[in-house]
């Protein structure tokens, strides 16, 4: 009890000391503490935006654009890192000697060299070693588009096809970018269409799970699995999706060379690509180790028992090994996702406009509100971390071993 009181008093004293210093220093500098700057005109451009934004928008809007950019690269990175990590982790356990060694080189190489170096390196590769848009011109062009003339890899970024809707439902319409500013990577005019498609897909997945449960129930009751269950499951996902895509008049908008640059399609900037690939490769190396450890943690007896029961190898993997390995894999995987999200703040190295560069960079420089800006920035990362780890913990609890 005495220690508690002493510690509490010490902590209060420290907070009081820091607080008094802040108040004093702000007074001395003639600054106050308020967040009104978020409503004033930003006055700077952001080259990649998922929502409508121009330099007349507010600082708050700029921060939101930055937040969305951070979340975009973190989301893409988590997906690619998981794919790479699982493949590398499984292949590292492969009996194939060369593949195993190759994956060891990948994992050790990325784990032992700073992420910042990889980001800069991949950015340098993207800008130095890829052709310029003008190399695509002419009859015998030096460079050519890949994947059936649909993807162009240039030193200004990668152009990929975009899906556009000819009979769009509309949404928050964006005026055509006029003064040489390029359009955002996902034009928000089609927000409603994508929302509809997303709702249908989610509904389809839920319905297909319900069908699966019904089929299993029927099988358990009668011993016969209803015929064509798999096709019903696939159909209930794809059917409405295809129908609504046709109804909305979805077509592919291919990038094509106009003048000195490509237009049409989605332009993924080098900064996004470099950051995305570097984060994924780096985190993928860590995930590979986690996956490997998870699979090794399931004892051999489990596999042998499953074989003895007459299960085929892939049923063994799906029903016996993976559910047990997942329990070991999920908690460290969560912390890798968190690390990836936090590491996306290294966007500063390649000039990707994430929340640190908008809210924590240009906005602070223009308004001189370091204290408020850094506070909001820290709060954003903290809330993101807590939300991700909270969501993942719920999932983790659902797969956890139910002990008595």
């Amino acid at each position, binding site marked *: 009890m005495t220690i508690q009181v002493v510690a509490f008093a010490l902590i209060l004293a420290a907070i009081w000391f*820091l607080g008094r210093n*802040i108040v004093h220093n702000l007074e001395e500098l003639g600054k106050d503490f308020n967040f009104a700057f978020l409503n004033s005109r930003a006055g700077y451009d952001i080259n990649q935006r998922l929502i409508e934004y121009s330099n007349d928008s507010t600082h708050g809007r700029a921060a939101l654009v930055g937040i969305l950019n951070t979340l975009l690269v973190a989301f893409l990175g988590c997906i690619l890192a998981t794919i790479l990590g699982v493949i590398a982790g499984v292949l590292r356990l492969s*009996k*194939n000697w060369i593949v195993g060694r190759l994956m060891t080189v990948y994992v050790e190489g990325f784990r*032992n060299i*700073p992420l910042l170096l990889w980001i800069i390196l991949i950015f340098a590769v993207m800008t130095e070693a890829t052709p310029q848009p003008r190399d695509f011109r002419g009859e015998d062009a030096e460079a050519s588009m890949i994947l059936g003339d649909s993807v162009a890899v240039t030193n200004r970024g990668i152009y990929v096809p975009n899906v556009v809707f000819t009979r769009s439902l509309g949404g928050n319409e964006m005026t055509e970018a006029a003064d040489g500013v390029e359009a955002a990577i996902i034009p928000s005019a089609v927000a409603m269409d994508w929302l509809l498609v997303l709702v249908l897909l989610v509904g389809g997945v839920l319905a297909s799970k319900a069908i699966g449960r019904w089929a299993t129930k029927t099988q358990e009751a009668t011993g016969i699995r209803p015929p064509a269950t798999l096709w019903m499951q696939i159909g209930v996902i794809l059917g409405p999706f295809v129908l609504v895509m046709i109804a909305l008049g979805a077509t592919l908008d291919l990038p094509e060379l106009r003048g000195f640059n490509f237009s049409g399609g989605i332009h993924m900037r080098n900064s996004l690509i470099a950051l995305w690939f570097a984060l994924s490769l780096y985190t993928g190396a860590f995930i590979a180790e986690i996956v490997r450890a998870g699979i090794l943690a399931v004892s051999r007896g489990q596999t042998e028992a499953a074989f003895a029961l007459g299960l085929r190898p892939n049923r063994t993997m799906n029903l016996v090994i993976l559910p047990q390995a997942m329990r070991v894999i999920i908690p460290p995987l969560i912390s890798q996702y968190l690390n990836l999200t936090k590491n996306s703040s*290294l966007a500063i190295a390649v000039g990707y406009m994430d929340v640190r560069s908008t809210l*924590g960079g240009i906005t602070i420089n223009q308004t001189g509100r370091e204290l408020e800006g850094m506070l909001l920035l820290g709060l954003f990362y*903290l809330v993101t971390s807590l939300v991700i780890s909270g969501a993942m913990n719920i999932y983790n609890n659902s797969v956890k071993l139910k002990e008595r």
Partner: protein
Amino acid sequence: MTNTPSFVRTQMLDPKDPPITEKGAVKWIRENLFSGWLNTILTIVSLYVIYWVLAHILPWSVGGIWNAESLTECREIRDASGIGYDVACWAVIADRWHQLLFGFYPSELYWRPILALILFGVAIAPILFDTAPRKLLIVTAIMPFAAYWLLWGGTIWGPLVTALGFVIGWAVLTYGAATLGALGATIGAIVVPLLYWLLVAGPLSGILGAALPIGIEAVPSDRFGGFMLAIVIGVAGIVMSLPLGIFLALGRQSDLFIINKCSVIFIEVIRGVPLIVWLFTASLLLNYFLPPGTNFDLMLRVIIMVTLFSSAYIAEVVRGGLAALPRGQYEGADSLGLDYWQSMQLIILPQALKISIPGIVSTFIGLFKDTTLVVFIGLLDPIGLSNAIRADSAWNGIYWELFIFIGLCFFIFCFSMSRYSQWLERKLNTGHR
């Protein structure tokens, strides 16, 4: 008719050799590389990848040019030699390796950081390897002050007077217990040195320095750079964050409500925000939190921030160690009648710290890699120096050689540390728990 067989072999045949496909290299290749169609495809793809990478990198790096004054001279030598392909210009490494390693530290004083590094190696030997003689722990105790003095130079009295504070604290803890009781001695051991550092240490070192001016040439922080900077920040961060991290871990495991909640909040807030945001906080905001007029150099601010940052991570590692100890150890300590601090010091922490060394080493590897981030607040770490070298007109436009050198150095450091931690894990894994 006697039933005799017509022929009986009287002597055994030598065993036949296995078929050529079932022995030696052929068998190994069949089993490991071409055991099925999937494996065969994987092998061929991997071989092609290896060939492609080597074909691009080997001629470029092996044929590299080591003797040149500038990138243009490199290119002239390459064109004159008539090689048809691009080659590396390693001359930039030959010309600037000392900058990448030491930054702008005065070249006649290079022996000082090297000596500090050797001292550091000697100092951590008794911690890392239990076969090293225990007497080396004395070196461990004086290492922080000696290394500070060697690196920054200046008068010897500053580090000596600072070290005296720890001696005072230790003396209070040892000899005060009889009169003040255990709790009083602990509090005294924290308060007395703090008062000493705040009030006495500054004037004392001033007086001593004036009376007996012993010292070596001072080197200001802005001359530090390259891998030396990375190592100094990383090592200082880990060494100073260890005690803090241990206290935070104990706080998080403690039953005392206020202490527990404060530790949890501190750890989660620090871990929830990226290091780069903390570094910007250090460079932009630290002045707001300090009494007006205080201003100290950027490197010290970075070290403080890195210390706070890694202490949260160390705390989680140590907490893992504390949680891994069987409950019987805690109960055994209680049943011997030891109080909290005694049981922690004598029974719990020695075991918990031992099993958390691998985790601490990987935290250190992470921190060491993260020291590259200081480039964004204007310190010259290896990546910052590579930008500085490229700003020189002689080496303008050189990328890969510098990146490869820096990456290789980081790889050697980090890989050897991770090998050490794996070795330790194998050694500590006694197979029963």
